[in-house]
């Protein structure tokens, strides 16, 4: 089972895996959502959507549908 940003729990961190950029908005890539960068979860709204993350030092809120697209390796 592959893990994505949407699987992170509060306070957990992960490293972004390689992904195909077709479905990912360019703006999100430019915010630092790129393979190898670290992403951590700061806060979740009810039902885990949207989520409040820090990616490459940037604090952002994104929806689950986008978080589901980015595969990561969770760092314990």
């Amino acid at each position, binding site marked *: 089972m592959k893990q994505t940003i949407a699987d992170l729990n509060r306070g957990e961190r992960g490293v972004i895996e390689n992904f195909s*950029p*077709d479905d990912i*908005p*360019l*703006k*999100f*890539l*430019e*915010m*630092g959502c*790129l*393979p190898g960068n670290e992403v951590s979860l*700061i*806060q*979740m*709204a*009810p*039902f885990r*959507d*949207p989520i*409040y993350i820090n990616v*490459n*030092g*940037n*604090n*952002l*809120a*994104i*929806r689950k549908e*986008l978080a589901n697209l980015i595969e990561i390796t969770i760092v314990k």
Partner: protein
Amino acid sequence: MSKQLKVALIGNPNTGKTSLFNQLTGLNQKVGNYPGITVDRKQGFCKLSDDVRASINDLPGTYSLNASSADEQIVVETLLNHEHPDFPEVAVVISDIENLKRNLLLFTQVKNMQIPTILVINMADQMERRGIKLNIPLLEEKLQTRIVVTSSRKGTGLEELKKQILDYKELPLKPCVEIEEINPAYFEKLETQFPDIDGYKLWLMLSQEMAYKNLDQKLREVHSRLPEISPSELKRLQQKETIRRYLVINSFFNEAYQVDKNAASDWRSAIDRILTHKIGGYVIFFLILLLIFQAIFNWSSMPMDLIDGLFASLSEYLNNNLPEGTLTSLLAEGVVPGVGGVVIFIPQIAFLFLFISILEESGYMSRIVFLMDRVMRRFGLSGKSVVPLISGTACSIPAVMATRNIENWKERLITILVTPFITCSARLPVYLIIISLVIPNQNFLGFNMQGLTLMVLYLLGFGMAVLSAAILNKILKIKGRSVFMVEMPAYKLPLPKNVLITVIEKTKSFVVGAGSIILALSIVLWFLASNGPSDDFKNATEIVTSQPASQHLSPDELNTAVSSYQLKHSYIGILGHAIEPAIRPLGYDWKMGIALISSFAAREVFVGTLATIYSVESDEEETIKTRMSQEINPDTGDKLFNFPTGISLLLFYAFALQCMSTVAIVKRETNGWKWPLIQLAFMSCFAYLCSLTAYQILS
């Protein structure tokens, strides 16, 4: 004559770019803390030295030169088109210390435009608290630029920036990232095809999803001959470009930007834990909302009464002191009440924007968006729709304007279309007078029934907005491409000056935008009401005086009888008669028809118009009410303003789009007549059917 330098300010949202612009130019402008608040073209002037002046252009905030909205596209076109009136001689990229790395992405893009570029690192006052140390010489060398460290909050570093702008000829033009590095094969081929245009400019024209509107002749010609590229290939190249730029930035970043975590104080996450809490966050939001509503309605009632009284006495004064004639009538009955109808809204709008701007400035607004997004999405709205819907309780016009930062077009359109259902302050006077006429002032289960009715009307408006949003979400087949992404900025204490500037600017834009329409329509209505086609209108005085019933009237009573007669035979009276067959099933007569038509200028005009029609002399609410309660329906012999008619009227005002200015603003924001007309037709039909049903059942 002194020389003038054209300077462009470019930067991410939330970097204090507009603050810095204010500091440099001293012009009153807006500082946003909410993504995408800078929209209009903002220009200011600043003296650089004794003989050189800078004309500074504050470009819309953008994260990148790959534009995904019309605002961002403005930045690209300004930098690309040498013939653009704002094409800068010097570009100043503003970055903030906290998000420097991300800011550098935009900087490296601007650097590719071959315009002399200065890098400003703003919010220097935060450096110590965050434990950040910068190696400026290293950054200057690697980025091929001059760096100025500023604090727009404290006003430091400005003189240094002016000096660097003056010395712009010293700035290196060499880019930090050569575009060929992204994909040598592709870009070499492109450059052989167009040898006289820079590779990055070709790439910008090739890769933008937004349509170019402002290119010079040469670029337009090149643009038309650019090779086709598949979306997937384009996306891959764009990803490569972004990776390449970050690679270059990362190669020196950690050496140039050091953070001592021990020195940094982290109250941001502590506040976030409370304000975005699953339960507590909503409780706090609800309390803040309650406070805002209380304040808007309580604080503004006094100035509003004052304004109302002032304009009424001004009208009276003009009528009594100017020579009788068309011009006096136009002034006293058209222009002054028209201006008054605009000015009356200023207190509420100013208070509303006071709160909105404090919420934005402090950074809390992004947290509201985060909290509410999921709930709103169920109805096809976005977390960003919350602000417009709240604003709608004051007035739909600023509310529709506030939808601009919803990047998904479908969500934005739905928000625009449903906002007018929210009970705006102009409905309030109409509600109050009708409620006091038809709802008994008694307690029901311990609550005042009139108060309950008012609350039900508010809930009805909100419920209708949400319901129609859900329906529109199902019907509208618009594929929204842009994705919801909100930056969560650091918390900041709002600067009073910035808040004040926002309040003044927004209020001004309401007065100028909506005000001119309300005023124009008031004058048209005045004309229709004070002119008539037939002899009945012209000879009103003789006809009324000669009537046997008029013989025992006092001169004042005679006057009002004449104006009532005139109104009946004026153009608007004829209009009222014409629509009577359509509105009779709702329980209205032709006089109410006139009031309905004229309240199209602004809903609250309803009360004033009825006052004129029923020839009430004073504008005192009590008098109008007494007069209205005496009106008899000639068909039934009952009171005209009885319970069924009252409910029917309340429902009509709750649902109908009785507001010219909203139609105008929706036309502007949706770029055409299609949506405002659909909205108008739908809301009017719906209001008509609801009122019809209610009246027929109740009577």
